[in-house]
């Protein structure tokens, strides 16, 4: 018998195909539902990786379903593709949304108006963070997931706190008539 017919009549063939058929469902769930991620670096101290000397990195729950309608609140922690390197994923906190005016951390810089579809993100640890203070406002289409809970280590297991609106933000809104139609 040839290889193909031996494979088809094997008693393991049917369960293997049945198991393989669930693979796209799992991929869909991981891509659009919930998955977990590892936080590297010190830019979100003390929220994540508060002790740089320890060996482990924080594991967090990523909620990808919540970003499908692109509704964000100021103070939420999100993961996003880095604007300067599309292969790199950053974990930062949203400080300001579209229409707001933000004062960057360097006080000699002018306040920045966040245009439509963009947001201002910052890491909790200002000195070790490459964020909007470095590369400016970030389009919200780059945001991939909301970081909702810390899974590991177990002594910090629980929801990620949302910070109140920073004093450097002047909350604004986009005028209703200025809805530009981009093709």
């Amino acid at each position, binding site marked *: 018998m040839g290889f193909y017919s031996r494979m088809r009549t094997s008693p393991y063939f049917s369960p293997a195909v049945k198991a393989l*058929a*669930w693979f*796209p*469902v799992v*991929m*869909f769930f991981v*891509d659009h539902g919930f998955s977990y991620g590892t936080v590297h670096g010190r830019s979100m101290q003390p929220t994540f990786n508060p002790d740089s000397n320890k060996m482990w990195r924080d594991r967090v729950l990523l909620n990808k379903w919540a970003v499908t*309608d*692109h509704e964000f609140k100021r103070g939420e922690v999100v993961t*996003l*593709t*880095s*604007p*300067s*390197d*599309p292969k790199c994923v950053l974990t930062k906190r949203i400080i300001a949304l579209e229409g707001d005016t933000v004062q960057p951390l360097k006080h000699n810089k002018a306040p920045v108006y966040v*245009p*439509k*579809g*963009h947001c201002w993100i910052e890491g909790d640890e200002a000195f070790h963070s490459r964020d909007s203070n470095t590369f400016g406002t*970030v*389009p*919200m*289409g*780059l*945001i991939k997931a909301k970081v909702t809970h810390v899974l590991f280590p177990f002594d910090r297991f629980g929801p990620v706190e949302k910070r109140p609106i920073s004093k450097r933000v002047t909350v604004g809104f986009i005028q209703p008539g200025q809805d*530009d*139609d*981009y*093709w």
Partner: protein
Amino acid sequence: MGPFQYFRQNGGKILRGATYAVQFMCFAHVFNQYIAEATFCMGPSMLPTFNISGTIVAVEHITPHFRGYRMGDVVVCISPAAPGRAVLKRILGLPGDNVCVDPTSQERKYIDIPEGHVWLSGDNLSNSTDSRYYGPVAMGLIRGRVFAKLWPECRLVPDALIPVSKEHYNR
């Protein structure tokens, strides 16, 4: 036979059918996300390459992983101004290039494209909102490369820009 008895007799078949439906839909979605998909796009910004009343285009996601995006590629990209909307544009500048911001304006201004960004431009410069307005676009927003048109005419979209000889340009 009431609905309860019908479900008790055929419950296994219904559940199996529902399982196959969910598995097929997830497979189709994953295929669209990672391999290729067909999307509908309309608008005046890519005339004459794509018409104004609507085209179904074939978008692929494989070659950008291997050889990256090249100059002249037509790409589907999430709009920087509206994260729920996708736009169809052509890449006219790669990271590190120096491009002219608006060839249609009186004074020519040039800009360096930062790393991780590309310059998008519609083929119909008279009616296209593109990088001339919202600046260089982060490559993380690009969703895929258009390689063929499916409807109303079925043909491959040519690969890149055509090189022009210097004598032709100076004439």
